[in-house]
């Protein structure tokens, strides 16, 4: 392993999209960056559906060409089966000219990490960050020290920096150390997913196509409510280049009721998949990939604070809601951009560090609150974050609002949107563009 530097301007924890982009943006502004990643890329990651909003962040990082030339699956939109109502939407109808993607995240994330390396960031893989000492953060010369340990080695070392950026995902190194993570008691979910080879898929025309057509006829992401889930539980079907990702998002209470103590997760998962008639049609020719079932036990959470003296939390380390609208990676990229901008401002204008950080925090928290609001099946308008979320909605373009409204119409969550925005134009645009989906019988 190359020698870890003794000091740098910014330490980034985590080499997912948030960490890699933050590192790239910061080196672009002339700062020295050391990025620590616990694993060795390429490494497995779930979350394969990406919205077309990713491109502006990729442009800003100079990585769009590398992603475009990788040949990921371009998706046309979404097909949604929500309690018997079949509807679909196409991104092109909302004025998007660049594609949404279905990506193998090991490959996608690796491209972003390599971009960070090429930009001049120091990259240390297979290094675990233990904690950050923030006691002298933002004194005259802000000084933070971060302790780390190479995987498999016994002794820890320290690196000095001026800011630490926590992009460590669900691990949340700094957020946990400071006790900032708050679990959403009304919204306790888990997710169980696996992979199938040779699954058919739904295209934007509402027809079912075999896996081999995926280059000729762009797929949609197929989402369906689970019948027993009362609008809370749902599944995703995301076709990739070699395989198809199929996952369930379910309330923990329901899992406790439906899964016997001796039943394996794989058996339970396959039983849920078999109970979905349309999914079974898509899987008629498919083979389950043995041993591919994985799970995450703990949704959802947010952070009491997403920035403070010497630190910033990004992406999943800041908060995680329901993945239903595929906003996770976009939020990660957004937070990377916002943090790089804010760190630059803080270092240039020491006297105004608190104000810059406060703008970062309120913008980020408002975005998280907006995601939470749209994803909660029964949103409580009296929730504390409502005003914040409304403000974030107001700061969105009519096109973006129309897409959010359309997504909420598809999943019967439009009441949430109605409580958030007063934009007849966005309503009209969304209502016109959500189309009924009629799948021909077998």
């Amino acid at each position, binding site marked *: 392993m190359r020698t870890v530097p003794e000091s740098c301007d910014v330490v980034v924890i985590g080499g997912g999209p948030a960490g890699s982009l933050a590192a790239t943006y910061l080196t672009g502004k002339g700062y020295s960056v050391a990025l620590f990643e616990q694993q060795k890329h390429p490494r497995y990651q779930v979350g394969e559906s990406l919205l077309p909003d990713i491109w*502006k*962040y990729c442009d800003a990082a100079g990585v769009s060409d590398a992603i475009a030339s990788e040949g990921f699956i371009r998706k046309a939109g979404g097909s949604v089966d929500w309690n018997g109502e079949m509807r679909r939407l196409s991104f092109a109808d909302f004025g998007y000219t660049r594609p949404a993607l279905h990506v193998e995240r090991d490959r996608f994330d690796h491209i972003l990490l390599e971009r960070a390396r090429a930009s001049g960031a120091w990259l240390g893989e297979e290094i675990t960050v233990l904690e950050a000492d923030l006691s002298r953060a933002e004194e005259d010369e802000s000084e933070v020290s971060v302790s780390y340990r190479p995987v498999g080695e016994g002794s820890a070392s320290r690196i000095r920096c001026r800011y630490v950026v926590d992009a460590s995902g669900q691990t949340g190194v700094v957020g946990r150390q400071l006790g900032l993570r708050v679990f959403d008691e009304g919204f306790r979910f888990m997710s169980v997913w696996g992979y199938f080879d040779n699954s058919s898929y739904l295209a934007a025309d509402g027809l079912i196509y075999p896996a081999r057509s995926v280059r000729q006829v762009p797929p949609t992401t197929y989402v369906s409510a689970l019948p027993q889930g009362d609008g809370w539980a749902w599944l995703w079907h995301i076709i990739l280049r070699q395989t198809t990702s199929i996952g369930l998002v379910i309330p923990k209470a329901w899992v406790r009721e439906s899964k016997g103590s001796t039943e394996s997760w794989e058996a339970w998962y396959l039983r849920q998949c078999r109970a979905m008639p349309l999914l079974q049609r898509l899987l008629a020719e498919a083979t389950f990939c043995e041993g591919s079932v994985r799970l995450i036990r703990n949704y959802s959470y947010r952070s009491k604070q997403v920035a403070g003296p010497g630190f910033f939390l990004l992406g999943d380390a800041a908060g995680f809601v329901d993945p239903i609208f595929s906003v996770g990676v976009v939020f990660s990229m957004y937070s990377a951009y*916002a943090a790089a901008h804010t760190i630059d401002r803080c270092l240039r204008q020491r006297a*105004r560090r608190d104000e810059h950080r406060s*703008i970062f925090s309120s*913008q980020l928290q408002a975005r998280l609150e907006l995601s939470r609001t749209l994803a909660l099946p029964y949103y409580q308008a009296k929730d504390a974050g409502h005003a914040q979320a409304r403000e974030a909605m*107001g700061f969105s373009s*009519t096109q973006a609002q129309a897409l959010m409204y359309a997504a909420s119409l598809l999943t019967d969550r439009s009441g949430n949107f109605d409580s958030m925005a007063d934009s007849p134009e966005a309503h009209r645009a969304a209502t016109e563009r959500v189309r009924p989906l009629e799948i021909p019988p077998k």
Partner: protein
Amino acid sequence: MKYADEQIFDTLARFFAQDAGREAAIAVAPDTDIIGEGLVDSLGIFKLIAFVEEAFKITIEPDEVLLENFQTLRALRNLIVKKLG
């Protein structure tokens, strides 16, 4: 320093002319909804705050980052004039 409205609008228009990713200067009228039209998005708002602070030598406080201050160039002009006292 005091600015005539014309100067303020001209200066703000420079932001849209130089904003990265835009091919050419975009004519933005004082009452164009720059948020709704997507001329300033979630990234642009950070850049716009920094631009206004530097161009007019003012500081924008966190509680002033509201839609009512940023939706149009006229709203921004009102904020700038208020801050310049």
